[in-house]
Structure formats: C-alpha cells, structure tokens
C-alpha cells in the first residue's frame, strides 16, 4: 500500500510529512535512551529481511497481490520505536532508489506503515498478551499482525478521502476487503518468523521495561 505521487492533496502530504518527521524524531530520542547493544545489528538484519520479504508479492483474490509489511514483526523483536525506525528506513530506500511510493507521499507512507502499522500493531500485541497471557503469544501476534494491515490500510484510505481522491463509501470497503486477505498472509509470515526466533534465540524477543514477562 505504498502511495505514489499524485494520490494525495498538498495539504494531506505536507501534514503527514510533518507528523512523520516529528514522530520519527520522538522515536529516535526514545531509542537513543533505551536501545540495547544487541539491538543495533538486529536493526540492520531486520530492515534487510523486511525489505526482501516486501518484494515477495503473493497473489490474493481476483488478480490482486499483496505483500508483507513487517511492522509487527519488527516491533515484537526490536520494540515499538526501533521497529518504527526500521520500517521507515525501508520505506525511504524503497522511495528513493526504487520509486516504490512517491516522495511527496513518503510522509503518509511512513505514517501509515511505521506508526499506525508498527506502533499501533505493537499496542494491539501488548493488549492481546495482557488478555490472553504470554502462553498464547503466537495467537496475539497473529491478531496484531492481521490488525496492523487493516489499520494501515484504513489510514491510507482516510488520506485518500481527505485528499478528495476517492469517496469514503467507495474506497473504505474496497481497501479493507482486499487488506483483510493480505493481512492473513501478514499473520502467517509474522507467526512463522517469530516462532522460529523464539525457538532458536528467545532472548531476541523485545521485553519492555517494567514487564514481568
């Protein structure tokens, strides 16, 4: 759901650029206080994995494809702030080198996928963990990663509506319908990767300060 140039009105892309710049600044400040040494190389590895996995479009219904987002995966392993930074780095490289997502829309794309998808998805993961308990961590991750795609595509739809590009009752059902399917792929990939990491290197799963996990 990388928005190209031309879909967003000037007001929308300027506003989302400002919000994303401020949000990234806040994430960087937060990360600089709390980043653990072992997370530094993991951020490089995670970006590389997310970038490569995002290239692998899989077919969903009716001649449409979807691809991995990676926000919840990044946040579960790195924490929400480092996770958001990782997704933002991927989006910047995709925009600057590969013309995937427009330069004017970069702020909106970072807003949707780094903040709504990654940090929003992480909050859902924490909420589910609190409700179901850590024994069902994989179920929580499945719910959160599916929801992260739905949330990000809702934010994207909202920007299209605000920009006057499409009408609410036209774009919302269409976007949510297709992303409900893409979200299943997201959940499958995220659960497989996290299960693998838990098996081989459980210490790499992010633990928030003050958690009793």
């Amino acid at each position, binding site marked *: 759901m990388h928005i190209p140039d031309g879909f967003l009105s000037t007001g929308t892309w300027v506003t989302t650029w400002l919000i994303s710049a401020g949000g990234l600044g806040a994430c960087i400040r937060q990360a*600089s206080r709390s980043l653990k040494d072992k997370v530094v190389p993991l951020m*490089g590895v995670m970006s590389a994995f997310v*970038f*490569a996995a995002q290239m692998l479009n899989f077919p969903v219904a009716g001649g449409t494809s979807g691809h991995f987002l990676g926000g919840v995966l990044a946040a579960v392993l790195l924490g929400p702030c480092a996770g958001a930074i990782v997704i933002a*780095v991927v989006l910047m490289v995709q925009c600057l080198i590969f013309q995937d997502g427009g330069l004017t829309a970069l702020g909106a794309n970072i807003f949707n996928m780094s903040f709504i998808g990654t940090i929003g998805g992480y909050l859902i993961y924490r909420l589910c963990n609190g409700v179901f308990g850590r024994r069902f961590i994989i179920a929580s991750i499945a719910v959160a990663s599916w929801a992260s795609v739905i949330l990000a*595509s809702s934010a994207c739809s909202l920007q299209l509506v605000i920009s006057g590009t499409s009408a609410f009752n036209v*774009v919302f059902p269409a976007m949510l319908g297709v992303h409900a399917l893409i979200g299943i792929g997201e959940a499958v990939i995220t659960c497989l990767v996290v299960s693998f990491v838990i098996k081989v290197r459980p210490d790499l799963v992010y633990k928030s300060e003050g958690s009793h996990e």
Partner: protein
Amino acid sequence: MNKKDILFGLLTALFLALVLSPFASSFPDGLERVAEDKGFLEKGEGEPVLVSPVPDYTWPGIKNEKLATSAAGVMGTLVVFGAAYGFAALIKRQKSS
C-alpha cells in the same frame, strides 16, 4: 547478536531477494487494484517528483527480467542493511556522548 547470527539473518534476506523475488506475483497490489477499480489510478501516473535510479525493482540495462529483479533485490537488501545498521549505531552513540 554475534557475527554468526547477523550473517544468518542477512543471508536469509539475500536468499529471498536473489532467489525468490523474481517469482513474486506481478498482479497489482491492494492499493493499486483499488485505484484501478475505483478509477483514480491515473492520478498517480504523472511524472514522479523524483526519478529513482532503479524504478520498479528492475536493474536498468539487464535484459533478462528475472536477473534484473534479483540484482535490484540484492542491491536493495544490502543498502537497507547498511543504512539501518549505520543509523542504529549513530543513535546508540548519541547516548554515550
């Protein structure tokens, strides 16, 4: 994270980019499909604001489409790895200074 873990993670990503990316679905993605169906795709088809060196994950000048995608994927994976690793190291250093 020791060297072995980093190498394992990076090689996994490079495998995806090198071997699997040429076989990815070429159907339009969710947003593109909706834009096409709902008639606003042409809004995004003007000149891009910035002309990227490797548009659409296809290395310019390589005739074989699969190889062009693989090459672009491997380059992108390495660039992203370096950028995020370097950026994370910078953030980390900011703290100690």
